[in-house]
């Protein structure tokens, strides 16, 4: 089967490209998205509206976008990287001044048929931009301070813009996704060591600034950290999400309560169960078996991405695919850690499963890039 043979000699052309898609990866994406449809149907009390149906349409749209992106040679996308990056920065600036407000943050642009979150877009465009940058840069100059400062700026601007929205979760994800590309490109490990040291220092600063005039985080962000550290301290207030989420998860047991049988969901005990907290819903109704299966699907997607990255002989393609893999990984790892009480509640959706248009479309476009790298992997 041609699409799984990695050492192809020539790039397919025309309609034959379709055959060279990584169909296994596409199937995995459909599987994960189907888990999302199932859970959105259940959360709505056994109804396709208001979520499952819309989500299916978006996925179909996303799948189509993935196919289109995949057909276009990867070098075209490399040339588009700067443009994509600049557009996303402009959109971030736009929402900063004109964006619709929701949940205390200015996050999206209302396009009528969907709400576009430029911060979601930035997760991928930053990775693209960095990959293109390192593709251009001489391998020998990678660790030169000047050439480290440039990518830091590339990361820093969108991170700063998302942070002031304020959206701590997304800004952290962009930061870590971008950092991962730097790491993969071969930046000297000492930079990372010093950043980690700085990070520890920053955390200390954040905590010590609390309650003073120069407080670095908003009160609700401090509250989230507090309840993360001790959710039981305020089970009906700020800790409610985490407590109820863990109850939903834990009460699922091995095999779960059964489809549509989750009492935490039926009784509305779990807030935001169609978006950030959809994983506990799955875990409650399908138990450890269901939850671990989803984790396995995610890991398989990662494996296909890494394989694509390693097979590509193109530096841009490798870094881009690895960056996308890391971003995807961060999405689900942070979300799962958050709902299981291992990380503070920072508002990161479960990729391809949580209800939401921007993240879905952006991720599908990103997988389109992965597919493009796969199809156009021949030297």
């Amino acid at each position, binding site marked *: 089967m041609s699409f799984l043979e990695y050492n192809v000699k020539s790039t397919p052309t025309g309609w034959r490209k379709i055959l060279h898609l990584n169909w296994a990866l596409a199937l995995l994406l459909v599987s994960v998205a189907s888990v999302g449809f199932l859970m959105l149907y259940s959360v709505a009390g056994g109804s396709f509206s208001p979520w499952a149906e819309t989500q299916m349409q978006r996925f179909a749209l996303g799948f189509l976008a993935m196919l289109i992106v995949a057909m276009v040679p990867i070098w075209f996308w490399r040339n588009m990287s700067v443009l994509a990056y600049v557009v996303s920065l402009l959109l971030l600036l736009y929402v900063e001044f004109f964006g619709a407000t929701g949940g205390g943050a200015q996050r999206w642009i209302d396009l009528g048929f969907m709400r576009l979150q430029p911060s979601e877009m930035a997760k991928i465009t930053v990775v693209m931009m960095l990959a293109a940058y390192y593709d251009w840069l001489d391998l020998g100059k990678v660790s030169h301070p000047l050439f480290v400062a440039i990518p830091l700026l590339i990361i820093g601007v969108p991170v700063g813009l998302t942070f002031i929205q304020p959206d701590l979760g997304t800004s952290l994800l962009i930061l870590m996704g971008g950092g991962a590309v730097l790491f993969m490109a071969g930046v000297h490990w000492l930079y990372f060591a010093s950043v980690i040291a700085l990070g520890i220092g920053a955390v200390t600063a954040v905590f010590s600034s609390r309650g003073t005039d120069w407080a670095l985080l908003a009160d609700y962000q401090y509250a989230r950290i507090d309840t993360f550290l001790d959710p039981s301290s305020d089970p009906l207030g700020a800790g409610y999400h985490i407590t109820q989420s863990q109850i939903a998860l834990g*009460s699922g047991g091995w095999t779960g309560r059964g489809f549509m049988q989750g009492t*935490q969901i039926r*009784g509305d*005990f779990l807030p935001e169960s169609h978006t950030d907290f959809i994983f506990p819903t799955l875990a409650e109704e399908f138990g450890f078996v269901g939850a671990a299966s989803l984790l396995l699907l995610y890991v398989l997607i990662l494996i296909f991405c890494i394989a694509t990255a390693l097979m590509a002989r193109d530096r841009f393609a490798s870094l881009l695919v690895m960056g996308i893999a890391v971003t995807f990984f961060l999405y689900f790892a942070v979300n799962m850690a958050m709902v299981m009480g291992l990380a503070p509640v920072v508002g990161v959706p479960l990729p391809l499963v949580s209800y939401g248009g921007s993240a879905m479309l952006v991720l599908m476009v990103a997988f389109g890039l992965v597919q493009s790298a796969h199809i156009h992997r021949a030297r």
Partner: protein
Amino acid sequence: MKKTQKEIEDSARMIGRRSLIVGGVFVGTGAVLAGRMRYLQVERADDFRLLAEENRINLRLLPPERGLIFDRSGVLLAGNEQNYRITLVREDAGDVDAVLDEVARLVNMDLRALERAREEIRRRPGFVPVTIADRLSWEEMSSVAVNAPALPGVNPEVGLSRAYPLGADFAHVVGYVGPVSDWYLEQTGDTDPVLQIPDFQVGRYNVEDKVEDVLRGRAGTSRVEVNASGRVMREVDRDPATPGGDVQLTVDAGLQNYVEARMSGESAGAVVMDCVSGEVLAIASAPTFDPNLFVRGISTTQWAGLNEDPYRPLANKATQGLYPPGSTYKMVVALAALEGGFITANETIPCAGSIEVGNRRFHCWRRGGHGRMNLLESLSQSCDVYYYELAQRVGIENISAMARRLGCGVRHDLPLSGIAEGLAPTMDWKRRRFDEEWVVGDTLNASIGQGFVLSSPLHLAVMTARIASGRALEPSLIRSIDGVRQGGEDAPGLGIDPAHLALVHRGMWQVSNDPRGTAYRSRTMGDAYAIAGKTGTSQVRNITAAERAAGVIRNEDLPWERRDHALFVGFAPFDNPRYAVSVLVEHGGGGSTAAAPIGRDILLRAQVGDVPPPELYPVGQRREIEAMHDSLPIFETPPVPSGRELTRA
């Protein structure tokens, strides 16, 4: 910039190496996530399952139906009536104000009630039914039901609330229920979950209070599944409430009604006892009040009216009020003297109107004196000097010992809120109480039921019943609980020589039947209903020297609160005593004029079992009696006994 093959190889090697590290991070993180999943979902699954249940399941308490209270023949005294009310669910109502206005048009609601309902609706979550009007009439309820389409969110509901069909007649026996206040919870330390039910009512007075544990019942539970905002999704299971036990009292509703009616207009108390069983047949205190007021929530005006009435309708004069028993105490002294051998039936004592003891002059009520008196005459004519003499022989200790034997100065444990202990004084008591020595004058005062001696009408009824029966009867008020007969064991004998008792019976018979007897006017016709009694008049004031000098002031000329108390005790029929009565009329004047007629009428009513026919009264009084009976608020027809099964045992 064109890359060399070497650069491409180097780059690929670097990416490969670093990817391996990143892959390692992936694997590590994945393992942590999977481990956490396992920990939450497998190891701690049971804990979380329990927490989920706690979230989901809410226990709703179901109020038990309060036990009923019946009279001895099954007449309902306290029942539960259906309380029609309407509730409103805000989120179903749409325009709440419009719906409320429509409701106010249909049912009788004043502006304040409307405002209260509006406030309550605002305060509660939108899905909670809020009672906007209760105690509606059937007509109001029907009009709401008919207009239901125009009243979205409005639901007619039926609840139970306590009702006392005989109203005021039984306030001093049955009492009333009231809401559970913080004060109540603190006082009783009661932790029964049933008390948390909104609008739950508990016994607050008399039998309702004292037999609360039987009447209350046990709350049922309904386990309902709720969502996060508390809305009920469905009922999971239900453990129905256990209704309270029914209580049957010894009182006779008809007799109680008659006694209350007969005393209306007076400030008075009366007790009727069965001389065979000791069962209390009536405990009445006038004036009385409507216990239903307290169930519905009494207004401050009504409360102030009851509280400030000089006749004190809220006090139970029959069991709580303590009065000097006056001459009704003379049987105690006579029996003490006979039993101690200090006097015989035939010995006479002269009465010259007064005697002097220890520098003080003690007067007989008859200024001119009675002449020579034997025991029978001393009782029937109530000669004070005879008892002054007797008391000096017998001594206070023997008198008070006899009083206690006859049930005075001891507490009788009836399930009522106010039970006075009374007082049969002793030398020791005075020393402890006043740090003063007992003087002979105290004994003389006690011999005519004055001075320190205090009794309630209940004490006097017990005394009369014991004298009549010769047995140590204890009054009882509960006949059966849930159909199980209470008490009923025979009372032991008093240990008093029957001949002595017979002598006292005879003296009491003369009180009511000898033309010179103090209660002769209040006699009955026909031996079958013959009464033996004793009148009493007790002073509530000290007669000042100035008053004495000015001559005796007639009671009628005194202000009400300084007039003498009038008392009467008696039993009937004389041959075979069945009913004992005691009557006290506060500031009624003289026992023979104010109390004896009431006592006679009560005893006749008890014996006949209905309003006594005029033939049983002396000819000259019949018209007056008939007119009186016509004017009394007596039941037209006896209340129909409730259909509920009374005896289950």
